[in-house]
């Protein structure tokens, strides 16, 4: 009961991700694995297919860096502050490369992960009927259900090669505890062939046992565990830190042109060797303030209180 899966992000990505892989990403705005996207970019992984529900930086950065050949998604944008300029440029103009799109809805993507998590080939959903989503996506199969004759749309199981999931805390085995919204992470972890789990804190298994309901991903789904504080920066993690909006605005501004975005990548993604250096570049005062903004108001309750 003490399998140690702890590794570094660099090693996990080197060992578990291949060019041409299909990648799923956890979180939505909160807990998006942004540091993992930085690492994929740093290792120049190629021709990735991305399956996501609704994502921001974690996907936008990959598209802008030219790593993505296809997205199977419900929504890609830069939430709260602006538009997905990298996504637009890639789809509309093929810069830095054309990204093929395959549209779904959030529930449809959720059902794809659920099917993958259950090991069944597809799931039915009532959404999308009458819209143009199935018209442009031939993976969606419309049929009458064999029991009541109701119109349903079938969506295929998502079985990503690798999933990146960032959570609040986990033990060395990979039992992952999530606080706040879960998005589709519970099913993504089960649907993926390999899971790279990053967390704000590694905690002893004895702490996990105190509140097992919070363990949303059991260790047997997980291949690598990386302790990565601020691994979602500039996005937030419930109970740990709030959104770094000035940083987000700065990179978004840079992404107005491909040249601007490339220069931003040089400065913020290629200029360091370890993620700690990135955090150092941001400065401890800034990180402490992002943490304070969250924790003065919202934190995981200490279970001793009960």
């Amino acid at each position, binding site marked *: 009961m003490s399998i140690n899966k702890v590794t570094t992000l660099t090693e996990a990505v080197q060992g578990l991700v291949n060019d041409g892989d299909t990648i799923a990403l956890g979180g939505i705005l909160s807990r998006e694995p942004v540091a993992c996207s930085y690492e994929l970019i740093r290792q120049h992984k190629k021709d990735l297919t991305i399956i996501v529900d609704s994502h921001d930086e974690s996907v936008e950065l990959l598209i802008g860096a030219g790593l993505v050949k296809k997205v199977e998604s*419900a929504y890609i944008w830069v939430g709260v502050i602006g538009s997905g300029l990298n996504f637009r440029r890639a789809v509309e103009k093929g810069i830095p490369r054309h990204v093929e799109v395959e549209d779904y809805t959030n529930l449809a993507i959720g059902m794809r992960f659920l099917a993958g998590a259950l090991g069944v080939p597809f799931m039915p959903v009532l959404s999308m009927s009458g*819209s143009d989503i199935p018209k442009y996506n031939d993976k969606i199969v419309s049929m009458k259900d064999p029991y009541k004759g109701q119109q349903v749309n079938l969506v295929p199981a998502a079985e990503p090669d690798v999933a990146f999931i960032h959570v609040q805390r986990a033990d060395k085995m990979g039992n992952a505890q999530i606080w706040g919204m879960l998005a589709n992470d519970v099913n993504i972890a089960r649907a993926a062939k390999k899971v790279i789990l990053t967390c704000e804190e590694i905690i002893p298994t004895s702490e996990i046992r105190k509140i097992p309901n919070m363990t949303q991903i059991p260790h047997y789904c997980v291949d690598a565990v990386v302790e990565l504080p601020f691994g979602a920066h500039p996005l937030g993690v419930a109970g740990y830190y709030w959104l770094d909006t000035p940083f987000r605005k700065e990179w978004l501004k840079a992404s107005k042109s491909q040249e601007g975005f490339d220069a931003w990548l040089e400065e913020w993604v290629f200029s360091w060797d370890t993620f700690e250096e990135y955090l150092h570049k941001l400065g401890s005062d800034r990180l402490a303030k992002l943490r304070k903004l969250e924790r003065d*108001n919202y934190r995981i309750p200490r279970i001793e209180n009960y």
Partner: protein
Amino acid sequence: MNYSAQEFMVSACSRLIKDNECVFIGVGIPLLAGVVASKIHAPNSVLIYEAGGIGAISRRLPWSISDNATTDNALVATELWRVLGDVQRGFVDVAVIGGAQIDKFGNLNTTAIIGPDKSYQKPQTRLPGSGGANDLASSAKRLLIIMRLENRKFVEKLDYITSPGFLAGPGCREKAGLKGGGPEAVITNKCIFRFDPLTKEMYLDELFPGVTIEEVRSDVGWDLKISSDIKIVEPPTEKEIEIMHKIDPLGVVLGRKSIQENQSFEDYYQIMKKCYESMALLI
């Protein structure tokens, strides 16, 4: 009383949310309209956010459907497919969403403005996609749509139907097997549109004070029908405006100004701290 178009939209939308309703909140103006309703006339409404937050009474305005605030002081923190599944199952009374382009049957496009000689794979303008909007438009009992009335947003025919309104007219939703009631109202910065129960066509029902029928008509891309009993929307009250600004002191929803300005991290930190203090007064 002075008020902005944005304040007017928030107020008009919030008033359409009823007490005791389970309200599914979309991105943009709905984020603020839901909280305003819950602080004024609908204290028992329960706000549901797509990434899994149910019933948050948060100490800051949720800026999106998935940020940390959406489960702050909440009743439930669960999964995305679970809450959208609850809509499909019929537990949700009303959903409030925004749109980029709409046609006369209330169908919405948030996927792509394809444009002449262009394709879905290489459109003139790519938009974010459905998110959960199609799921809500398909299955929510009531659907409120909020979007600005601007040229080329209200069009005769869409390039792409992302989220279903009444599709091609009467009987189409039923034929497609959609369970939800379809759009009830479209709240804009100039007026409120509703849908004819027989023809399912969008018509002008209420004007904001000072706006003319011609002004509305000129921004609509089809021969717009006008209610024979046209009403004037009650402007926001002083209390509504005061509460809106307490909830959104940064102007994330009310005015994009402060969030778009080049702002130092230190300024941002100080303003965010004030946000908490401001919201705390309302809890």
